[in-house]
């Protein structure tokens, strides 16, 4: 019962955040310096066309009315009209959603596969060669620009040793797996530098707990202690770290998509900046934020189901 209450409360908490996101996204358009119509139309500026653009963006109304309109449209799934594609921004965004979600999911899986073993072994072999190496690699990896790492991976594994495609999204599930391997790996490596450190610390902390001493005294084997007592507790922090840093992972896709020419939301966002397609920029920003809120919600719920103390609090 208390768990159900926790879920309900947590979902309700997300609502004001979503509301606030719409406010920030709405105000983004007010940052356009000068007359947005002039910015958008450029040399095609005429008084009549400007009036039309202002009307299309709702700029000819009072501020509160603009926001209400924005919100009403949002509730109907209307993100406005793309100024560049001349079709609803929602359609434009929907077409680009799948590659980004695939990339984020793929990167998360690879990140788990890389960081969990590395973090655990680092903790078990604390101060030894493996741990020291992992420390240096994470230090350097943390300072490495993702887009540059991506280019280096292309250079090594797509050009010098042609194992993977240079760019694109591929066709079919296997094609996606093949084409998105290098970009997903790029994101996963950057992400892992954060996760490995935290996981190492939480495994060490779990080993320091009293119940581990108790288990040792009872004569339980080292492997059983590791699997049943230490990892079970440490994995909770992995879930939390993954959840918290997923915003970073999602932000990373924006630039990596541009390196590997993947037709996702990130490349759409950057293209829309240069075409001054403000409604699409707004829509993509909003969608990314909603994605982060959703992921945080799921993280908290998974956290609570793994660790009953969270829901009881």
């Amino acid at each position, binding site marked *: 019962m208390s768990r159900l209450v926790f879920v309900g409360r947590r979902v309700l908490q997300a609502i004001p955040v979503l509301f606030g996101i719409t406010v920030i996204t709405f105000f983004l358009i007010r940052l356009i310096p000068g007359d947005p119509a002039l910015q958008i139309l450029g040399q095609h500026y005429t008084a009549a066309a400007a009036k039309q653009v202002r009307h299309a963006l709702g700029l000819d109304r009072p501020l509160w009315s603009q926001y209400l309109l924005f919100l009403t449209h949002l509730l109907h799934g209307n993100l406005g009209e793309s100024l560049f594609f001349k079709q609803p921004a929602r359609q434009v965004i929907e077409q680009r959603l799948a590659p980004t979600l695939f990339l984020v999911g793929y990167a998360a899986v690879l990140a788990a596969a890389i960081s969990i073993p590395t973090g655990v072994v680092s903790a078990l072999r604390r101060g030894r060669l493996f741990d020291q190496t992992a420390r240096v690699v994470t230090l350097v990896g943390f300072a490495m620009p993702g887009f540059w790492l991506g280019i*280096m991976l292309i250079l090594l594994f797509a050009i010098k040793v042609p194992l993977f495609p240079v760019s694109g999204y591929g066709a079919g599930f296997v094609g996606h797996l093949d084409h998105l391997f290098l970009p997903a790996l790029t994101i996963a490596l950057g992400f892992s530098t954060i996760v490995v450190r935290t996981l190492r610390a939480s495994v060490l902390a779990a080993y320091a707990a009293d119940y581990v001493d108790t288990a040792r005294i009872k004569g339980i084997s080292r492997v059983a202690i590791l699997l049943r007592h230490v990892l079970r507790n440490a994995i909770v922090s992995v879930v939390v770290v993954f959840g918290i840093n997923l915003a970073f992972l999602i932000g990373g896709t924006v630039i990596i998509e541009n390196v590997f020419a993947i037709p996702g939301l990130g490349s759409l966002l950057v293209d829309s900046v240069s075409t001054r397609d403000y409604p699409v920029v707004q829509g993509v920003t909003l969608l990314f934020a909603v994605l982060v809120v959703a992921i945080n919600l799921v993280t908290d719920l998974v956290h609570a189901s793994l660790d009953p103390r969270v829901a009881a609090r």
Partner: protein
Amino acid sequence: MSSLASPSELLFDRLQARSRRRGRHLRRYGSLIAGATILSVVIVACLAAPLLTHYNPDTLDPLHPLAGPFTPGHLLGTDEYGRDILARILYGGRIDLLIAFGATGVTLVAGTAIGLVSGYFGGLIDTIIMRIVDLFFAFPFFVLVIAIVAMLGPSIFNMFVAIWLTSWISYARITRGHTTVVKNREYVLAAKALGYRHLRVMLRHILPNVVSFVLIYAMVDAVGNVLLGAALGFLGLGAKVPSPEWGAMISDGQNYILSSWWLSTFPGLAIVIVGVGFSLLGDGLADLLRTGD
């Protein structure tokens, strides 16, 4: 995020430090010294660029395009217009370092001030500020920065504005958290009882006890800002391509990656070196803080 060690991490590093008295000084100051050395060398090299290379970063040399590294006269080779890559990295470093210090410095001061006020006074101000902070955290940072740059129009200055608008939130949250703890300490209560003004209590009694946490985070943030500045340059949303900014150089070099790997590789290494410098400095500060008391 990874900047502030969890309590468990603190505990463990303390245990570790206790168990290994030997080489303690190296442990304590090693990262700090290494980081400071790396950064000073880079800063001096970039500022003294005219003394280190006689090439102009923008002078075209159509006779020697795409010369490989270690060709006589061009240690790191030349780009497609025959411009010396070492010279471009040294001069471009001025832009990237400006981003690191300019973006980080402003948000450090502003965010800390906001966090101090929020944590010290509490109540309605605190609630409002922290709700705003929560909202900003709901956006992927990079996406929000790009969205703001998109609205303002892509340029280096607008990139600064976008970072200023968004990255104070982490400083505010960290400062606020520590302030709420420190403000109930006896010496702060004593200072208040003596009738000191709020400003004096905040600056003289709370800030010194909070600032180390903020500085450690600032080093992580500086790494982030170097990467962010380079990333925006790479995407053509910050520094523009003829500029020798490192991200823009990498972007330019990607067009020649099939034949000339050095165009993109060396500016990237420069970013890594600066980033590692800041990271080591941050680790060093954190080590000092942990074993310092």
